[in-house]
């Protein structure tokens, strides 16, 4: 059980890093996908995952994973579909 939880936490940390990278890149490149406010959701995700690591509680780990996954999926989907709107090569 402990090994599984640690795997979830590690996966969560990787997701959080990837999400931060995505958000930073899109803010720096001025892509109108996510506004600056979305960083706070990512921050909440990080706090939740830290709670998961600290308390060794799977609830927080799963919640952190869900938050990060939803944000990453919506960000990627928005890039994928949004890029084609009003695109003039």
């Amino acid at each position: 059980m402990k090994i599984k939880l640690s795997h979830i936490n590690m996966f969560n940390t990787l997701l959080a890093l990837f999400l931060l990278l995505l958000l930073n890149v899109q803010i720096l490149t001025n892509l109108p996908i996510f506004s600056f406010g979305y960083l706070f959701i990512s921050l909440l995700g990080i706090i939740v995952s830290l709670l998961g690591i600290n308390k060794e509680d799977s609830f927080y780990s799963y919640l952190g994973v869900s938050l990060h996954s939803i944000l990453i999926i919506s960000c990627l989907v928005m890039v994928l579909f949004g890029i084609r709107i009003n695109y003039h090569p």
Partner: protein
Amino acid sequence: MEKEELKELLQKYYNGTLDKEEEQRIEELLESFDAYNEFLNETMGEEEIREVDETKLIKKAQQRFFFRNTLLVISFILVIVPLLTMFSVVYYGIGGENGKGNEIIQTIATVSEMTTPNVYVDYDTIRDEIYPFTMTVTVDKYQMVYDEKRYVGQDRYKMFLTDVFAKESDYKFNGYSIDNIETRFVHPKSTYSLPDERRKAQSLPNDWPLEINISLDKAYPLKEIHEKFKGYNITWLALETGVEEKMKQEQDFIRTPAIGFPYKKVSPHSVFDRDFNNYGEVVKGLELLNKYEKLATNLTEYKDLKLSERLNWVKKQKELKIYGISIMGTAKDISSLQKMKEVKVIRLGLNDAQWGVDE
């Protein structure tokens, strides 16, 4: 030992009438009672402590439950906006080039090109923002004054899915209201009398750029227009679509606009991009507007664009017939135009000063 017997013995012990052996027995028994009392006291104390611990534990569990629930609710609230925005982006973006978002933008540009003479959308500066269930499109509009592009102003359309719920304009005096409707052309077969404004131009400086809207004495094929008005800076042509001759009252002109198309190539991204005044392009433009008729109507000040009727009529005709021309010219051009027998009514359109553009 019986209860009554013990009572009797205790009474005797109290009176001091017991013999030594019985007295010793009773004292041993009383000592065992002390141990029992001690045990009872200790056990009860522990139980009390256990009760206190249990209350603490329940309180802690409640707090934990409350904290988890709060986190869950906050997370749920926070992800609502990204998720709804994602679904909205998918709604507008699915289908790529022919997706709803792109067709809405194309409709906005085509409506301007087909309903307002010489006012075009700048395709390079179109901005779109997507929020949950809504899309805001901001466009810069320009006018062609001879070969020069002149900025007119900015329009912002706010859409709930594909319905316009707000439109703002920074160059129209009353925004998008029927007060801005200007009747520029009248069909030769219409009984409505449109006042001629050619005299107005006499008071203007000769080099002042004017939008001259000419209503012709009959509908001419496009080829004849090229020949008859060669040398003039034609910007827009009013197209006969079968509904114009039925427009007889002022209300009809407020309700339904003249439909036409730009005379010159607008932009590579526009419907009017390739072939010069191509019949196919006009049909393509009308088909697009007809597909989004409600949207196209809401993008203008008018109430009814009668697009399906117009599209069917144009498709039946198989050629473009022109009953009105918009020319960018000067007062000098008006004096030469008024000599032509084809010119029935001359109306002056909005010039730079009226659009609020600095010279």
